[in-house]
C-alpha cells in the first residue's frame, strides 16, 4: 500500500499527521483517533483529531477541491481575513487493497469558536439571531473588499467567537469560493442572494428542531443581513460629493469608518471641473481599527468589539488617573495608588475627576499602568481550571460587565479584588468550557 502524499504547512506536526489511518475512509476511522464529532451541516465527512496541543478538523473531499481550498484559506489568512487556518492536504490515498480514496483537507480548530447552533443553546441574550447576522454581514463585507466571492454564504459555513456583547464571524468553509482582484456587482449580488436563502434556511431548521423560539422570524433575520451588509458596504465604498468648503466632512467620514471598526488606508479626493465640489472615495479601508490600537498599546490580541470595550476602559482609566504629585486612594484594600482617584476610578467606566489640576497620562504610559493594575490582576487571578471557559479578552469584558452590575446593585464602587473574586465564583465558574467545542451529538 503506497503512502499518501502529505503537504503540510511549516507549523503542522507532519509526522503525527502521517500516522493517521489514511487508508480508511474518514467515516470509518476508529474512535481512538477522533477528538469529537462534526458540527453543523456539511456535504462532506468531517472529523476532528487531536495532535499535540492542537485539534485539527479533517474534511474528506476530492483532491482538486482540497488543494484549492487549502490555497484559498492560506491566501485569506494572509489577507488578514478571519478564517480557519489550513494545516495540510493529503492526496494519493488508497485502501489496503489499493482502492483510491478521496483527498483530505486539514484545518486548525479555531479555539473558542462556536457554531451558530450551539450559541442558541448557550445564550439567553436577546437578539442572538440578529447579532450573528450582523457579524456575518461584517465578515461578508470584509471578504468582498479583498475580492473573495464565497458562493455558499451561510451560518453553517461560519464559526463565531464571542466579541464583547456581539460576535466575530470566521469563514470555515471556502470550498465554493473564488478570489478575484475585485468582485463584480453580480458576484456580490449572488453572494447576497445565496446568503438570504441560506440564512432563512438555517433559522427555519433551528425552529424545526425546537432550538429557537418560534417567535423568531427567519425571513426577517435574512433580510437583516442584507440591510446590515448594504449599509456597511455603502459606508466603506461610496463616493461622496462635498462643497469645496466642507473639507471637515472628510474627517466625519473617517470617524464614521473608525466607529464601524475600519481605518482609512487611502482616500481619493478629486475636485470637479468647476472647482466647487470635492468627490471623496475611500480606496483602501482596513478592518480592526480598535484591535490594532489595543495591540499597539498593550500587546493584547482581541476581537474588534472586545478591543473597543477595553480601549474605552483604558481611556476612562487614563483620564481619571493623574501623573505627577497628586496621591490618590486605591481600591485594592487600603494601599495607596498614585493612579486612582478617591472615587475608585479604575477603568470599567468608573468615576472620574480628582482634586487639583490633574495631568492626563500619555497614552502609552496609561496603557502600561492599566495593563499592570487592571488587566493583569484579573487574568492572573483566573484559576487554571477556568481558563478554558472564555478567551482572556472576553473574560475581561464579562468581568467589566459583572462589576458594573454589582456596583449598580450595591450603589458603590466594588474594589477590583473583591469584584474578581465574585466574578470568578458567581459567573465564570458557571459558564461552559468554550475553548474546544467539538462534540455536537445533541445537534
Amino acid at each position: 500500500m503506497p503512502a499518501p502524499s502529505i503537504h503540510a504547512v511549516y507549523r503542522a506536526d507532519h509526522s503525527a499527521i502521517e500516522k493517521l489511518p489514511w487508508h480508511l475512509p474518514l467515516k470509518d476511522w476508529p474512535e481512538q483517533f477522533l477528538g469529537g464529532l462534526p458540527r453543523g451541516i456539511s456535504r462532506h465527512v468531517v472529523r476532528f483529531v487531536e495532535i499535540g496541543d492542537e485539534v485539527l478538523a479533517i474534511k474528506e473531499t476530492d483532491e482538486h477541491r482540497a488543494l484549492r481550498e487549502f490555497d484559498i484559506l492560506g491566501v485569506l489568512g494572509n489577507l488578514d481575513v478571519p478564517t480557519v487556518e489550513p494545516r495540510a492536504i493529503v492526496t494519493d490515498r488508497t485502501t489496503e487493497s489499493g482502492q483510491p480514496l478521496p483527498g483530505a483537507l486539514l484545518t486548525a480548530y479555531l479555539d473558542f469558536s462556536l457554531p451558530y447552533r450551539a450559541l442558541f443553546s448557550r445564550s439567553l441574550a436577546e437578539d442572538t439571531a440578529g447579532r450573528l447576522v450582523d457579524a456575518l454581514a461584517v465578515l461578508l463585507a470584509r471578504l468582498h473588499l479583498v475580492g473573495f466571492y464565497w458562493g455558499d454564504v451561510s451560518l453553517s459555513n461560519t464559526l463565531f467567537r464571542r466579541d464583547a456583547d456581539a460576535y466575530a464571524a470566521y469563514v470555515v468553509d471556502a470550498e465554493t469560493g473564488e478570489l478575484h482582484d475585485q468582485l463584480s456587482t453580480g458576484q456580490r449580488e449572488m453572494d447576497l442572494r445565496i446568503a438570504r436563502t441560506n440564512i432563512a434556511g438555517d433559522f427555519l431548521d433551528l425552529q424545526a428542531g425546537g432550538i429557537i423560539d418560534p417567535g423568531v422570524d427567519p425571513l426577517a433575520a435574512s433580510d437583516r443581513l442584507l440591510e446590515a451588509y448594504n449599509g456597511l458596504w455603502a459606508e466603506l465604498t461610496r463616493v461622496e460629493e462635498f462643497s469645496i468648503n466642507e473639507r471637515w466632512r472628510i474627517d466625519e467620514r473617517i470617524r464614521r469608518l473608525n466607529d464601524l471598526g475600519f481605518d482609512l488606508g487611502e482616500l481619493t479626493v478629486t475636485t470637479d471641473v468647476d472647482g466647487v465640489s470635492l468627490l471623496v472615495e475611500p480606496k483602501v479601508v482596513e478592518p480592526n481599527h480598535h484591535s490594532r490600537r489595543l495591540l499597539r498599546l498593550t500587546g493584547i490580541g482581541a476581537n474588534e468589539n472586545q478591543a473597543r470595550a477595553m480601549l474605552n476602559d483604558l481611556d476612562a482609566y487614563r483620564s481619571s488617573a493623574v501623573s505627577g504629585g497628586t496621591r490618590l486612594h486605591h481600591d485594592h484594600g487600603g494601599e495607596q495608588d498614585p493612579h486612582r482617584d478617591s472615587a475608585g476610578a479604575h477603568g470599567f467606566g468608573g468615576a472620574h475627576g480628582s482634586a487639583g489640576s490633574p495631568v492626563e497620562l500619555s497614552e502609552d504610559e496609561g496603557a502600561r499602568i492599566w495593563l499592570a493594575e487592571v488587566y493583569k490582576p484579573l487574568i492572573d487571578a483566573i484559576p487554571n481550571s477556568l481558563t478554558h471557559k472564555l478567551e482572556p479578552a472576553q473574560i475581561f469584558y464579562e468581568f467589566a460587565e459583572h462589576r458594573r452590575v454589582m456596583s449598580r446593585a450595591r450603589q458603590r464602587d466594588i474594589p477590583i479584588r473583591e469584584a474578581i473574586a465574585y466574578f470568578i465564583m458567581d459567573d465564570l465558574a458557571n459558564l461552559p468550557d468554550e475553548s474546544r467545542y467539538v462534540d455536537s451529538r445533541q445537534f
Partner: protein
Amino acid sequence: MSTVSLNGLSHTYENTVSPSVHPFSLFIDDGEFLVLYGPTGSGKSTILRMLHGLERPKTGSILIDGIDVTAAAVNDRDVTLALESYALYPHMSVRDNLGFALRVDGLPAKEIQARVESVTSKIGLIDILDAKPGDLSQLQRQTIALARAVVRQPKVLIMDEPVVNLVPEDQAETLKLVKDLQQEFKLTTLYATANLEDAKVLGDRIAYLENGHLIGVEKTEVAEALVASSSDVDL
C-alpha cells in the same frame, strides 16, 4: 420555459489580454437542453456565469424571452443554478427542504405546497415528503438538492459540472436524474461539462468550445463528429 439569445457575446477577465470567451452567438430554444462541452479553460463556465450575472460581458447581449438582461441584476434574471444552495437541513422535512426557498422568495403557502407536490410526484419522492434528510439515501438527498432548483421554476436552469465530484455510480444516477427532471419539466437548460459521454447522454444539442471559441453547435447525434474534426479548426 423560455428562450435564450446570446448575441455577439464575449468576455475578458480583468488584468488579462486574451479573451476568455471570443465573440459568439447562440440561440437556445424554449425547453431545450443545451450542453456546453469543452475542456477546462474552454470558456463554458464563463458563458454560464455571464448568463447568471456573475460576469459582465465585454461585448454582446443576453436576451431571455426577448428581453435584454445583459446589465440586469442577478435577482432580475430568473436564472437558477442547480445546487446553488447545497445544504439539506437536518431538522426540516423533505417538504420544507424543498419549499423554504420559495417562502424566502415570497410565494404563498398554497403555491409552495402545489409546486413541491407537483415536482415530488413526478420524481418519485412524494412518499417521503415528511422524512428527514438523515433518513434518506445519498441519491435521494442529491435528488432533493437538484429538485430544489426545479421547484423554483426558473426561466433558465444552469448547471456547471454538477456531478464532477461524485463517485462514478452516483454520477450515472445523477445524470439520469438531471435528464429526467429536465424532460419532465421542460426547463430551458444549459449544462457545462468536460465529459463528452455525459454531454451525449444529456443534451438535445451540444455546443463545443475550445480556448474560448465556440467551434460549433450540433444535435447530439452528430456532435461527436464535430468534436473529432475540431483539430482541423484554426483557432
